[in-house]
């Protein structure tokens, strides 16, 4: 078979449009396309998953540190509680959670006697005034009304002694007149704000 002779122009055209070159482009393009598809549909989801796992690890590390801190704090508190447990138990009497003001009653009587006063009556009631400028979280104000009689000269000391009790009571109202009974004693009405806890299981 006689080979066809080609001139220069035809050679250049042949090189530019050679079927091998076209096939080369197609293979390169296909490979790049396949690689891109692989990256989009295989590698990218894995990287997304890895990012998710990384975020999860970060969150778990934070949680782990918080749990460590909590366990450590609880251990320290446990030790402190063992050391000062008896003192803390006194709080049950000072700020009762069951409405039992036995310590208050036990303190009031000696204070009255020490100042030469006699207890006429005592009653507890809900606190209805609005004289508190702060908001306690667990302590609830309560009211105790004391009716007593004694000498006017000692009443200031009596009020100071009452306010010095460990439950930090405050004189909310106080009144008296100069009328005296047959013993020469004056009647006084004292209303104090005390505190209790409105949760029976608070200390348990």
């Amino acid at each position, binding site marked *: 078979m006689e*080979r066809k002779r080609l001139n220069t122009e035809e*050679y250049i055209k042949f*090189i530019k449009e050679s*079927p*091998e070159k076209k*096939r*080369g482009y197609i*293979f*390169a393009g296909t*490979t790049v396309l396949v690689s891109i598809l*692989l*990256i989009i549909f295989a*590698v990218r989801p*894995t*990287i997304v*998953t*890895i990012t998710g*796992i*990384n975020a*999860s*690890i970060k969150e*778990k*590390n934070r*949680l*782990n540190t918080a*749990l460590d801190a*909590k*366990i450590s704090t*609880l251990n320290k*508190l446990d030790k402190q*509680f063992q050391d000062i447990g008896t003192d*803390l138990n006194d*709080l049950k009497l000072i*700020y009762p959670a069951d409405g039992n003001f036995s310590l208050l009653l036990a303190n009031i009587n000696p204070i009255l006697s020490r100042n030469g006063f006699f207890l006429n009556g005592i009653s507890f009631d809900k606190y209805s*005034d609005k*004289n*508190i*400028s*702060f908001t*306690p*979280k*667990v*302590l609830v104000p309560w009211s105790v009304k004391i009716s007593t009689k004694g000498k006017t000269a000692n009443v*200031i000391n009596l*009020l*100071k002694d009452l*306010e010095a009790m460990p439950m*930090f009571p*405050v*004189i*909310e*109202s*106080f*009144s*008296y*007149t*100069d009328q005296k009974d047959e013993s020469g004693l004056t009647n006084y009405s004292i209303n104090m704000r005390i505190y209790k806890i409105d949760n029976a299981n*608070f*200390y*348990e």
Partner: protein
Amino acid sequence: MFKFGKQSQSIDFLQPSYSPTDVWSTAYIWLTNVGKYLLIAVEVLVLGVFFSRFILDRQNNDLTEEVNAKVTLLSNESWQKNAAIYENYQYLLSDVKTVKEKQIINSVKVSELISGIPSSLHLSSFGFSANKITLRLTSNSLNSIKDYESSLKNNPNYSNVVFSIDKSDDEINVSVNFGFVID
């Protein structure tokens, strides 16, 4: 399948001496020359991603086990009960501190008031409630009452001082109402 053996006898220098013309041969040639680097790169990337995921998964699982163990420990009834008690005590102690520091002691105020009444005035009744004071006084001297009135009105701790004076026979009855200035 591949036609490697058929080499043309041409002196056309633009054609390589070995130049496959079918699709599979071209693909094979391309793959062994250029594509292999692309494949190696993709393989390296895939292996890197695989191993990093393997390591991260192990770390994640270890952490999950550690966290679960601590949560189990803290979920123990005894620990939960202790935690609740300690929390309650912390709130209570915080309240006690607030009460101790912020509440105003009124016995001092009452003491100042009663001890501030001049001896020339006789206190017949005293009332203190919600920072309001009510006094009933008797006296024979109007000057003493005036002096006491001016001392109360000039005292910056008291406000709205109101004196009501009622004179009957030889005795002067005075009713005094005022309030405490709250800081």
